[in-house]
């Protein structure tokens, strides 16, 4: 199953939802994606919804709040802005906008209603969070929704991890059993239409490790069954192979000859060449080869999903020192932008 080229898949997409198993570098990839788009001259909003302040840490800025903050101004004219959406603030804002609650909002807060609605009442929280994203995607410079140019060329959402993302995006089903009518219900329907449109895509980030690849496959199946468009599978933190293929092959075929050669080489340059050192080097190589073989197998599973695959290198220094910029360049080279 050949995957379509990434550039074609991304054409015309305005909402990029980024998910992945916890710990695979979702926030870093979402940040790099936002940056890659901004470097092509676009106005991009990067949104996080779990209040982890991952974006502010990645870009080294003070914690994000309910206001959109500019993170990067690119020479191309593109801009990257950040926003941390928080359910409580979103609910109060929502009530304020639609019901002109004024002081009553504070009363609701004191009564524990806001806590209740945003924490316990399932679905409501997610409607509020995705609702902010919906608003940003649809926002225009004209007076009303739909009038004038789009305020944002693209919105990148650092979404909940694979285990929860289906539920998070499936707001309509979530609230269907609870709020069967009323504004929340209508809001959920509009959000769902946007999320399922061809202008929205979900990208899944993974590592070449067993659990993340398994969860990626599960998420791809779940999300496509639920009618969401899938974008790329981003294979993150890929390490360059440290041993040439020929050497790995020889390790299996001719260990005795290899051992002899290594011993002679080490002796020639005056390095200890006892059995422990020589055997140790070969054992390290065998472990590495096993890891490479497993990564190769998992890479095959990822490609078997039939989605465009993007590969990002492991950054030895983490995301400090402009690491996100390096990843953004990689994304651009592989078809983003």
């Amino acid at each position, binding site marked *: 199953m050949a995957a379509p080229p990434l550039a074609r898949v991304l054409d015309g997409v305005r909402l990029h939802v980024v998910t992945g198993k916890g710990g695979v570098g979702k926030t870093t990839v979402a940040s790099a994606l936002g940056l890659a788009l901004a470097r092509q001259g676009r106005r991009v909003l990067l949104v996080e919804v779990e209040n982890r302040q991952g974006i502010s840490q990645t870009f080294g800025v003070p914690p994000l709040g309910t206001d959109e903050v500019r993170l990067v101004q690119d020479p191309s004219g593109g801009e990257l802005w950040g926003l941390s959406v928080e359910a409580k603030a979103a609910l109060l804002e929502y009530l304020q906008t639609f019901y002109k609650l004024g002081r009553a909002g504070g009363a609701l807060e004191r009564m524990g209603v806001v806590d209740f609605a945003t924490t316990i009442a399932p679905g409501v929280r997610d409607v509020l969070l995705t609702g902010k994203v919906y608003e940003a995607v649809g926002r225009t410079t004209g007076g009303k929704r739909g009038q004038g140019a789009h305020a944002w060329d693209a919105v990148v959402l650092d979404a909940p991890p694979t285990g929860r993302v289906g539920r998070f995006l499936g707001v309509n089903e*979530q609230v269907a059993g609870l*709020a069967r009518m009323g504004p929340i219900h209508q809001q959920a329907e509009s959000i769902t239409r946007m999320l399922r449109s061809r202008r929205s895509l979900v990208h899944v980030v993974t590592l070449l490790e067993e659990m993340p690849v398994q969860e990626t496959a599960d998420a791809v199946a779940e999300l496509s069954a639920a009618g969401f468009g899938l974008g790329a599978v981003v294979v993150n933190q890929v390490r360059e192979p440290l041993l040439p293929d020929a050497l790995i092959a020889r390790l299996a075929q001719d260990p005795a000859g290899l051992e002899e050669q290594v011993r002679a080489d080490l002796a020639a340059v005056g*390095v200890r060449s006892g059995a422990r050192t020589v055997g140790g080097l070969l054992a390290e190589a065998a472990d590495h080869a096993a890891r490479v073989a497993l990564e190769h197998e998992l890479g095959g599973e990822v490609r078997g999903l039939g989605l465009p695959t993007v590969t990002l290198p492991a950054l030895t220094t983490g995301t400090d020192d402009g690491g996100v910029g390096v990843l953004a360049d990689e994304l651009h080279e592989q078809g983003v932008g």
Partner: protein
Amino acid sequence: MAPRTPADAFDVDALLADPTTGIVVCCGSGGVGKTTTAAALGVRAAEAGRRVVVLTIDPARRLAQSLGLTALDNTPRPVEGVGAEAGGSLDAMMLDMKRTFDEVVLAHSTPEKAQQILDNPFYQAVSSSFAGTQEYMAMEKLGQLRAQADADGTWDLVVVDTPPSRSALDFLDAPKRLGSFLDGRFIRLLMAPAKAGGRAYLKVFSVGANLAAATLSKVLGGQFLSDVQTFVAALDTMFGGFRERADVTYALLKEPSTAFVVVAAPERDALREAAYFVERLEAESMPLAGVVVNRMQQLAAPGLSGSRATAAAEQLEDRADDADAVGPSTGPTPALLRLHATLAEVAARHEARVRRFVATHPGVPVRTVPAAATDIHDLDGLREVGAALGG
């Protein structure tokens, strides 16, 4: 291959052998190998003669299969071929949080009432998706297993894995959070009309309560509120307070027969989470047994330093370059030496991080476990991890 441990080594075998150890809780942030550690502790304890039950939360598929966990039936199943020689045994189960919640409902109410709750849409949503339900149900299941162990002596050791949350602290905090919300002020208000003493209370707050109820009805639809009311009223009569229930399990965790094993990986974030957790356990006088740091890079040729290996690789390449003007033909050795140098650098970084942790947490026993080349998904793999933990 027991690694050097920097300070007080965490004596895992002694912990598992101690007959007063009744519960081992493995906690830590996501992605550090908690489930593997829990399973390996279970195998090792069983093969030392303990009768063990392991509660796993979200195991990798192949690890689950290796434990015989093919069906998600929320009941412990024996793992064949473990511990019989030593007079021990191993049972394992995978938590099904919805089912555990359902069982609690069924166990504590009449059949009609239970059905009413199970059918309530609000219950269905809370039991399958509320962000604390999994932690709450893990504790609930732990309590059940412990009670069964005490009652019929099936097991003398319960090992629990904790849910794959972002923060290790979630395991301690989430149950209380769920409990306090279900016990919360607003919920009390919703229920107040149904209670004899509630009217006066409601009267005092009536303006606020009515406003709150009216707003929620407006935003969510009236049906929502009545579903919530039914749900809360039904739960309250049967539970006698969620908070109390959470408190009971919390107290169980404080008993001296419980041992917390904090699991981490030699990465900055994972060790920071471990530090938070260790500090929290100390603050709450909870029994911390020690910290396990998984995935330590090991060197099979530890006598050769990374810098020496790099220098030797360069020397060999120089020689090849001198000898062969046509193109580099350096043979396999420089590549092997450079691989070793890279691994040595990673190993040094890992050790430095663990040393820093030990220095800032003196007196906390630490045990490091070597990284396996590939993922662990059979009993022999778990035995190896167990040997590294004990040994």
